[in-house]
């Protein structure tokens, strides 16, 4: 409950124009693009500085008001929809790029900085450096993607984006402002070592342990040559073989693998998709190679061809790898120039009744079982009348994989959101036994994860939360197994 007195305090902190309890504001922030049911906050507040957030959290703590950090609301996990009211702290106004260090190769961002704005900054000011962008619309937050352990284009080589964080400034739920990493000792934000690595108190916690107000992330030098290749597979076995073999080389920096129905969707086909012919590939991968010069590129191409040939021979299935400009449709190349807009995904099921919605089950899984997850998920999606739009990714040089079930749906069709939720629950049930863990995990899925969690892990996580957030004000609907 936010009383008039509390509201006036909030207004004193950030100014009247940046606090709203207007029903239309609460309504807009009560939904995201997923099937998550409506959940109304009590107020929206838009701070500009860490000190303003500090004051807001002190008030929230005193009055035990839930606090939900927000930037774009595009997490596809219902992570900013509150079912306990409270204040949404919209961080959009905090969009400064505070520091760039070309020697130590990092950039310090406020949480409102989006992929698009970081790309613009680098292109205009430091064109020799690049960041790893998400397969997402451009105006989503770099910081939240990293804190939520999102994946991006170079995750094949360097893992999920939490691993790119080199320093944080955090306002703790109790109002203290602290810095994590080398920035705790100086203004160098380049390493989280050798002090005890406390970034883990904030990465992956879905905003339950504080509000990050500054985030240093790595940038990498732009390679002299960057070239995309397309691989198409006649079966999952040959794809599996290629994935494993390339993971044991230094050939690839980025990969995105799509089930063939996903490829058809990206090429503009809409629901209901035509039958897939037996002679069509089962999957396609975009493989990104960095090279120092043409000779290096030729050498990498040769190695890639050799891997393809050996994989074909071993599995008796076919794989064809071609430079993308020779094999891939222009539309797909455009979508892989990240960050990119994704109209075919959003509008896949928008037909006579115009309506969009997007959900997914994204899992981080082990490389030994990705095929089983994929096949089970494929069938579940078909059984529910949804095309098996599935995305697979090799992460951190094969240490783990992503298997993500993409579910565009139509919010204008009554009952479709509910069907999506049922399907998602089945997908979680089917993939958990293989060691898969949902990332950007919705609260309902967290309850399922609890069943397989080590009780000692859970106890430790609860202790950490109780210590940092004694009144459980921070994003209390998330990681539901902590309650």
């Amino acid at each position, binding site marked *: 409950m936010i009383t008039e007195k509390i509201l006036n305090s909030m207004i004193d902190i950030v100014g009247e124009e940046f606090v709203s309890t207007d029903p*239309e504001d609460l309504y*807009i922030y009560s939904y995201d693009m997923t099937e998550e049911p409506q959940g109304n906050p009590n107020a929206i507040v838009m701070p500009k500085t860490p000190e303003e957030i500090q004051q807001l959290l002190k008030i929230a703590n005193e009055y035990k008001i839930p606090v939900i950090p927000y930037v774009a609301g595009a997490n596809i996990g219902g992570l900013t929809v509150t079912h306990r009211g409270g204040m949404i702290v919209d961080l959009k106004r905090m969009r400064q790029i505070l520091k760039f260090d070309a020697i130590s190769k990092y950039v310090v961002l406020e949480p409102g900085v989006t992929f698009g*704005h970081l790309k613009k900054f680098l292109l205009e000011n430091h064109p020799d450096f690049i960041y790893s962008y998400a397969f997402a619309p451009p105006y989503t937050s770099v910081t939240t993607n990293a804190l939520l352990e999102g994946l991006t284009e170079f995750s094949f080589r360097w893992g999920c984006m939490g691993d790119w964080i080199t320093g944080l400034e955090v306002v703790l739920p109790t109002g203290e402002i602290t810095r994590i990493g080398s920035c705790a000792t100086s203004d160098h934000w380049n390493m989280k070592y050798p002090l005890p690595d406390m970034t883990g108190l904030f990465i992956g916690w879905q905003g339950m342990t504080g509000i990050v107000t500054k985030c240093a992330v790595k940038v990498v030098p732009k390679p002299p040559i960057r070239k995309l290749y397309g691989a198409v597979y006649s079966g999952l076995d040959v794809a599996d073989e290629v994935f494993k073999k390339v993971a044991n080389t230094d050939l690839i920096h980025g990969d995105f693998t799509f089930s063939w129905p996903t490829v058809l969707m990206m090429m503009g086909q809409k629901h209901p998709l035509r039958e897939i012919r037996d002679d069509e590939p089962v999957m396609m991968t975009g493989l990104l190679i960095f090279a120092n010069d043409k000779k290096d590129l030729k050498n990498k191409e040769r190695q890639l061809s050799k891997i393809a040939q050996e994989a074909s021979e071993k599995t008796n299935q076919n794989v064809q790898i071609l430079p993308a400009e020779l094999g891939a449709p222009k539309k797909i190349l455009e979508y892989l120039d990240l960050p990119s807009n994704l109209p075919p995904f959003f509008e896949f099921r*928008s037909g006579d009744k115009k309506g969009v919605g997007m959900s997914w089950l994204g899992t981080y899984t082990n490389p030994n079982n990705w095929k089983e997850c994929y096949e089970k998920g494929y069938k579940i999606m078909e059984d529910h009348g949804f095309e098996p739009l599935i995305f697979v990714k090799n992460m951190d040089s094969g240490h783990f994989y992503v298997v993500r079930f993409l579910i565009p749906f*139509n919010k204008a069709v009554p009952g479709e959101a509910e069907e999506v939720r049922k399907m998602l629950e089945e997908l979680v049930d089917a993939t958990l036994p293989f060691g898969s863990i949902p990332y950007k995990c919705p609260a309902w899925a967290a309850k399922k994860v609890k069943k397989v969690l080590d009780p000692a892990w859970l106890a430790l996580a609860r202790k950490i939360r109780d210590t940092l957030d004694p009144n459980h004000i921070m994003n209390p609907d998330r990681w539901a197994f902590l309650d």
Partner: protein
Amino acid sequence: MTLESLKEWVYACVRCNTCKYIINKYYDSCPSGKKFQLESYWPSGKTWIARGLIEGKLKFSDSIVQKIYACPTCGNCMIQCELEVSDHILEIIETLRAEAVRQGFGPLKSQKAFEESIAAEHNPYKELHAQRTSWVKDAFNLKETAEVLYFVGCTSSYREAEVATAMLDLLTQIGIDVTVSKDEWCCSSPLIRTGQLKLVKELAEHNMEMIKNSKAKIVVFSCAGCYRTFKEDYPAILGQEPNIKLYHVTDYLVKLIEDGTVKFKEDTPLKVTYHDPCHIGRHCGIYDSPRKVLNSIPGIELIEMLRNRENAWCCGAGGGVKSGFKDWAVEIATERIKEAEETGAEILISSCPFCKRNLEDAIKATGSSLKFMDITELVKNRLA
């Protein structure tokens, strides 16, 4: 359009945020969102307000009115959004405004005066109709009828008469059989853009009858807003396309340059930049003609602003913002003036008297050394 008719589109916005900035360039595109920041001020937020109203989860209120009117309806969001809903965003905003008026909540107080003034004197500026053509010099020696009718518009008639004078000077100097009508009424743009639709059909019918009486075969506009209204709104209001050729002056000048009617003299070099008015640019797709005109003039060097053509930053005057949010309108224009200054141009050119008004207000407010000139003034000055 009714609120119910928007039902087809209000579920078509996923709030992916793409409407908020210029696609693939990442510059600001939405004056409303940039200023007010809350989701409800961005184009996607306004679409969701419509959805909430249709679902009965929201009711019109003063705060909703504030949000749906805090938008210059520049249409930049329609360019940046790549979903099917993109073509309908302005329709959603204008329908919300019309519904707000119908339910007694809209428009903003300062905008209500438009309707009263237009009802009484056929212009939104509370000026006497009898004075509408007082800027016309006797020397023009205009006839009652002519092949070309210049539809002057209220802003040029009452506030920016130098545009009207330059236009008529230009057309008469090159021998065009042109006239203006004392019987011209407001095109109704200020009413349509603010949701006040009561008088609109009457105004449209009157203006079409006035054109008919002028016996003109061509109507030329120097006002981007009037042109947009005739071209895009009148067919829907009247249920038929106007049976007459309509030209914005920039298109008309290209025709006259190409057929040799307009010839330019050699003159001193001048660096200029061009501001695309939303009402002819994004709303009607006229981007090339003004550039062709400028590039045809000897000595003129056109330097583009960072955001140009379909990505141009709005001047901030349209959609009722100039009357409803006076300071913010100038703030939006100030951003455009700074962008124009960065080109190194001496003159900022545009082709709309309403843009001129707001951009000149920003020039004054900032003390900029930039000069503003309507394209008609420049062309007139450079005629052979």
